[in-house]
């Protein structure tokens, strides 16, 4: 017995030494939309700093907020900012606040499948809200045809496709519709999952794309990255300045630049329907959620180091992965905000 206990003790001690010797491990969880970007960053950062290992689980924005609030992960990530209630819950539980750090930007685009129509369609905010409210039911409705002179649209029923599960994509889409349509605001509202007035639910960007591709006369919404990677048609959306803009990294950056001037201290900002002639109106930041106070100084320094690197060198990786970079003004603001982490 004693021998076994002795062997166990030695083994434990060895394991302890080995454990302490391996990289400092930091855990995060949250949004799925920036996951390809984050995994690239964490990988590159680990190569440059072999003693720091950042693990990230893309369990969804809601899950990220929940886990960081409960303290089971060191940081969270979300596609929509935390609301006041969630901030209060965090404050109550930890006695200190949580900070939002924008990392990159993305866009959500309307995609469609109308047999015989190859051209890129123009969508007004009224048309999008009407279609998704179930008020515009035919493709040849004047609300659609007026913005698409010269394109012959059929008199077929529109099949609306939306996300079935909660998602940051839905948050951005409904946030936009809430801003441009009062009826949407009072009837449906914005959120990662809403009570859809019409349509079919499909699980994930893949299934939305698949359903739209397979269903004649359908319309859905997916992330820009996804639409580009799959080469599916997507429409131009009329922005706040009245211009029809096709989503692109430049158009997303333009939306961010417009918002950067009025960026609040806590970075909790929505840039849908942003001002500016070239701004794409359904764009959004995605955020890291980092607690203000860390009990472990090593972890704190590692996270601060990572955010600094992400804002400088890290941004250069963004465009290769089809994410838009942060505007310079926002980067400067964030550099200052890092010092709030204690």
């Amino acid at each position, binding site marked *: 017995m004693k021998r076994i206990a002795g062997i166990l003790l030695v083994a434990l001690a060895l394991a302890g030494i080995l454990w302490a010797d391996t990289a400092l491990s930091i855990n995060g969880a949250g949004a799925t939309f920036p996951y390809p970007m984050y995994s690239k960053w964490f990988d590159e950062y680990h190569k440059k700093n072999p003693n720091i290992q950042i693990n990230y689980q893309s369990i969804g924005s809601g*899950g990220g907020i929940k886990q960081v609030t409960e303290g089971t992960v060191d940081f969270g990530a979300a596609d929509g900012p935390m609301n006041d209630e969630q901030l209060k819950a965090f404050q109550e539980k930890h006695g200190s606040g949580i900070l939002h750090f924008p990392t990159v930007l993305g866009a959500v685009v309307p995609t469609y499948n109308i047999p015989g129509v190859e051209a890129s369609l123009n969508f007004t905010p009224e048309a999008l809200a009407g279609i998704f409210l179930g008020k515009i039911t035919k493709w040849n409705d004047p609300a659609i045809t007026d913005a698409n002179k010269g394109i012959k649209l059929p008199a077929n029923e529109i099949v609306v496709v939306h996300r079935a599960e909660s998602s940051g994509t839905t948050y951005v889409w409904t946030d936009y519709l809430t801003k441009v349509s009062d009826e949407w605001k009072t009837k449906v509202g914005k959120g990662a*999952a809403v*009570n859809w007035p019409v349509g079919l*639910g499909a*699980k994930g960007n893949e299934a939305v794309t698949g359903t739209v591709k397979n*269903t004649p006369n359908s319309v859905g919404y997916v992330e820009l990255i996804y639409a580009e990677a799959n080469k599916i048609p997507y429409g131009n959306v009329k922005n706040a300045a009245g211009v029809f803009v096709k989503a692109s990294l430049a158009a997303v950056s333009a939306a961010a630049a417009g918002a950067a001037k009025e960026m609040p201290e806590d970075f909790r900002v929505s840039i849908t329907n942003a001002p500016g002639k070239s701004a794409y109106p359904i764009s959004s930041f995605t955020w890291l959620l980092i607690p203000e106070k860390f009990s472990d100084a090593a972890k704190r320094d590692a996270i601060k180091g990572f955010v600094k690197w992400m804002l400088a060198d890290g941004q250069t990786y963004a465009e290769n992965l089809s994410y838009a970079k942060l505007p310079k003004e926002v980067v400067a603001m964030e550099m200052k905000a890092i010092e709030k982490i204690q």
Partner: protein
Amino acid sequence: MATTTTTVPSAGPVAGSRSFLSRLREGDEIARVITFLFAASVVLVTLLLVVELWQGSVLPRHKFGFNFFRTSVWDPIFDRFGALPFIFGTTVTAGVSLLIAVPLGIGAAIFLAELAPARLSDALEFFIDLLAAVPSVIYGLLGIFIVVPLMREYIQPGLKNTLGFLPLFQGPAYGVGFLTAGVVLAIMVIPYIISVSREVLLSVPRDQREAALSLGATRWESTWKVVVPFARGGIFGSIFLALARALGETMAVTMVIGNTPTISASLFSPGYSIAAVIANEFTEATGDLYLQSLIELGLVLFLLTFILNGLARLLILLTSQRGSEMSHV
């Protein structure tokens, strides 16, 4: 103790404890205790599950009460939650799948057990077991890429043209919906029904068949009137298994049901099932009421399984009594 000493004549006054000791030494008692614990753990886990689900759903139970089962709005933004469309969707898809799978599955099992040559039967059984082991997401993909387009292009228009006067087959043909989910579920549960039913039919004693044949019954008569009734209990068992799988199936259903909480008389309409909505919304359910409403849906699914299984058992009890009376005549 006293009774054992009197009833076992050869044993002495300490026979009771000695036999217990010897039984202990031989392992009988230990085996009994261990297996009892294993059996009890099943009950324990079930109870724990109910307690956990019950405690986890305090908020919606207090806020909505019985209305949770009666209302059909599911709105996470304005915090209104009703389970009716999900209960409807789960029941309808499971029902449709059994309507398709039971006759097909039992028919196939009868062929394999009674009529097919043994080598063919064994070879097919291998494929059936293989089908039963395919992950449900594969069936879901099969559903999206094959069943849904088939439904939209051929089957649903066909049903509309022939049986369109029934409310069951009206409305736009999206391809996804209750009917498609039922069909995909049927494909998934058929292997269970065939596999279990075949085993049960094969285990019917030979003399039952021989007796029927010797009385002048044809082969089909001996199969249908003697072998199948004899194996009825096991065949119903296979249907239970299929029902349980159909009620709880998540991935394949969510891929083809349309994920829209609706109650409609039309099988073409998109719908939603309990398991699917839990899987889709649980990870990002942010508010407490929202999360707990999803947990209460879990409780509802548990109850639904319980009730449907109970009803099915009752049905069997009733029919098997009638059956045994007939066999006595």
